[in-house]
C-alpha cells in the first residue's frame, strides 16, 4: 500500500493517512515519521530554485545560503538530485577569498554561512579544495574583541555587558564581535576535519577558544541567547534555538556544569515550544546529549501546517530533526 500524503488533525494530534488504494482514512500514531519526512522533503524539492539554492521564505526567489545549506543537509537523506544541485550551487557562489555570502547576489562574507557551507559539502571529493579555502578563511576570521585595543576597552571603559574578551569566537560578519551561533557553527565545521596538519594546525586552538567563549557567554541560569548573558547587572533570558546550537557544538563536554545546566534548561523548555525552528534544534541538541526526544518529535509532527510553513529553513530543519540520527552524523556528531 503506497502512502501518498498525510494531513494532521490538530485536535487529536493524530494523522490521517490517505492511502493509494481507495483512499482509506486511517488513524496512525505520531511515530510514523517516515511519512512526514517524505512529505517534508517533497515540499522542499518543490521549493528549490532553478539555481539549486533555496530562498528563506517561500514567497521569495532570492537564494539564502543558510536555507540552502539546511536544505542540502535535509535532502541528503534521499539519493535525490536536490542535494547535488544545492551542492553545485554552493560551489558556484563561493567568494574568491574562500568565504560564502549570506545570499546569492551579496558582496560580503557571511561567517555562519561559511561554516554551514563547509558542513553541507562534507561528502564531496571535488569540493575538498573549496572546503579547505572556506576553513582557511574561517581560521583567519576572529571576533573583534580578540584584538588588544578592544580587549582593553571591554576590560576598562565598557563593562556594561559582562564577558571575558580573552575568550573569543566568530562574529556573524567580519569586523564585529563574537556571538554564540556563528561560533557554534564554526566549531562544528572545524571539528569535522580528520586532521589539523599544515596550515590547519591552528584548528584545535581556535576550537578551544570558541568553546571557552561559549561557556563564558552562557546565561546565569543555563542556556544561551545571542551572546549577552548579563547586561547592566541583569541576567538576560536564554533562547531555545541558540541554546540548542551551542549544545551541539559542546556535545563532547557533557560533564561541564554549564553544559549540564543548559541541557536541563532545554529539556525543561522544549515541551513548551510551538515553533518548528526552535523545536527542531532542541530535538537535535537533546538527542546529541543522549536525552529522549520521542515526545518532542511527536510535538514537532503535531504542529499544524508543518509542510505549508512559509519559512523554508524551518521546514528543512524539521526534516533534519525527523531524521536526527543522520542529521547529527552530517554535523559530525555521533549518538
Amino acid at each position: 500500500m503506497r502512502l501518498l500524503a498525510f494531513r494532521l488533525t490538530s485536535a487529536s494530534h493524530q494523522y490521517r493517512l490517505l492511502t493509494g488504494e481507495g483512499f482509506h482514512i486511517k488513524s496512525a500514531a505520531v511515530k510514523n515519521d517516515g511519512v512526514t519526512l517524505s512529505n517534508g522533503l517533497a515540499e522542499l524539492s518543490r521549493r528549490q530554485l532553478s539555481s539549486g539554492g533555496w530562498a528563506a521564505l517561500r514567497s521569495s526567489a532570492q537564494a539564502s545560503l543558510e536555507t540552502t545549506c539546511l536544505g542540502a543537509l535535509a535532502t541528503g537523506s534521499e539519493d535525490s538530485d536536490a542535494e547535488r544541485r544545492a551542492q553545485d550551487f554552493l560551489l558556484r557562489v563561493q567568494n574568491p577569498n574562500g568565504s560564502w555570502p549570506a545570499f546569492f547576489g551579496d558582496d560580503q562574507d557571511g561567517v555562519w554561512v561559511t561554516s554551514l557551507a563547509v558542513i553541507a559539502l562534507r561528502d564531496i571529493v571535488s569540493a575538498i579544495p573549496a572546503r579547505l579555502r572556506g576553513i582557511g578563511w574561517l581560521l583567519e576570521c576572529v571576533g573583534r574583541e580578540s584584538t588588544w585595543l578592544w580587549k582593553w576597552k571591554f576590560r576598562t571603559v565598557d563593562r556594561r555587558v559582562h564577558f571575558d574578551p580573552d575568550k573569543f569566537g566568530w562574529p556573524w560578519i567580519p569586523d564585529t564581535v563574537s556571538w554564540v551561533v556563528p561560533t557554534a557553527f564554526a566549531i562544528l565545521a572545524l571539528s569535522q576535519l580528520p586532521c589539523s596538519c599544515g596550515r590547519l594546525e591552528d584548528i584545535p586552538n581556535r576550537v578551544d577558544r570558541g568553546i571557552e567563549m561559549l561557556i563564558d557567554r552562557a546565561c546565569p541560569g543555563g542556556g544561551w541567547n545571542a551572546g549577552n548573558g548579563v547586561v547592566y547587572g541583569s541576567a538576560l533570558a536564554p533562547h531555545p534555538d541558540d541554546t540548542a546550537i551551542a549544545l551541539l557544538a559542546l556535545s563532547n563536554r557533557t560533564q561541564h556544569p554549564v553544559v549540564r545546566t543548559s541541557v536541563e534548561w532545554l529539556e525543561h523548555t522544549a515541551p513548551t515550544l510551538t515553533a518548528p525552528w526552535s523545536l527542531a534544534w532542541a530535538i537535535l541538541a537533546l538527542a546529541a546529549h543522549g536525552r529522549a526526544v520521542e515526545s518532542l518529535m511527536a510535538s514537532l509532527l503535531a504542529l499544524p501546517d508543518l509542510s505549508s510553513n512559509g519559512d523554508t529553513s524551518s521546514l528543512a530543519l524539521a526534516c533534519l530533526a525527523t531524521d536526527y540520527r543522520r542529521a547529527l552524523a552530517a554535523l559530525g556528531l555521533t549518538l
Partner: protein
Amino acid sequence: MIPNRRDFLVGSAALAAGASVSVPFFRPKYHSVRRAKRSRVAILHVEEYSQRIDQVLASGLRLFPIDVQDKTVVLKPNLVDYIPGNAINTHPILVLAAAESFRRMGAKCVIVAEGPGHQRDTELVLSQSGYRESLRAEDIRFVDLNRDELIRTQLCASFMGMKSLWLPRTVLEADFLVSMPKIKAHHWAGVTLSMKNMLGVVPGSRYGWPKNILHWKGIQESILDVCASIPVHFVIADGIMAMEGNGPLNGTARPLGKIVLADDSVAADATCARLMGFEPDRVVHIREGSKFLGNLSPALLDQVGEIPSAPTTPFQVVPEFQHLYAL
C-alpha cells in the same frame, strides 16, 4: 609687515589644505531635507489594552488627513523578544486595531512586518506574544523582515559612513509605512521610539542577530541613516504600558496610558520623550533628525487631543542617560 608673493602663496595653499580637511566635518551628513513645515501630533488617553482601542484609534486617525485608498500599508511594530511579564513588544491588540482602521479607510492590503533583533525564531516570538493567533484570525499577512527578499539600497544620509544597506523588499515597496513602537527607555540609545523602531527593518539574515554592525557604526548614527532612507509616513506609538530602566528587554513596566499618533516620526518621538520626562533635544537621533527629517520644536507641532505634559516622576534610565532628564 606686508606679505610678499611667496608668503601669500604659501598661506593660500595652507588655507586650502586646511579647508579640504575640515569641510567634510561641517558638511551636512544628510542628502536632502524632508522636514515638513509643520507636523501634527495627537495624544490619546487609553488606560488599558481592550477592544475599546479600536474606536479610540479610529477616531484618533480621523484627526489626520490620511489617504490610504488602494495603497499597501505596512505596519512595523516593535517585536523584539518574549519574556513573560515584561512590556517589551507593541501590544497585538493595538496592531490589530490599526490594521482594521486602515482596512476600513480603503487600504488595498495591510501587512504586519518585523525583523526581531535578538530572537532568530520569529515564529516563536509571534506565537508567544499573541501575534500569531490574532493575525491568523484577522487574516493579516505577516512578513519576517529578517528573511524577506533584500534589495541593495543607497542610504540618503552618511552618519555611520556606509553608502548602502541591504533592506527588505516589503518595506521598500510599501505605499504607506507605519512605525508602531513601544515607548521604552533603552540602555544603548536612551529611548526606543518610532525612529529607533526602524532598525528592525535591517535584516538579520544579512547582518546577524543582533544586527551588530549597527552597534559598531553607532546606534544613533544607524537610526538616522535608516530613517533618512526609509520614509515613515505615520506613527502609532504604544505607551499604554511603557517600559523604563534597563530597556528594551529587562526594564520595568511603566503604566503611561497613552497612544501617540503623528505624521512625522521626529515629532512623535519628541512628544513621547516629553511624556517620559526627557528633553527631546538631548536624544541625539531626535535632535539630529530635527535638522532634516521632522519637527522637534513644540512651536512647529499642531497638537491635537491631549497636550503633552511631563510626568510627575520621569522614566528611569541607565546611568549613561541621566542627562536626558528635563531640568
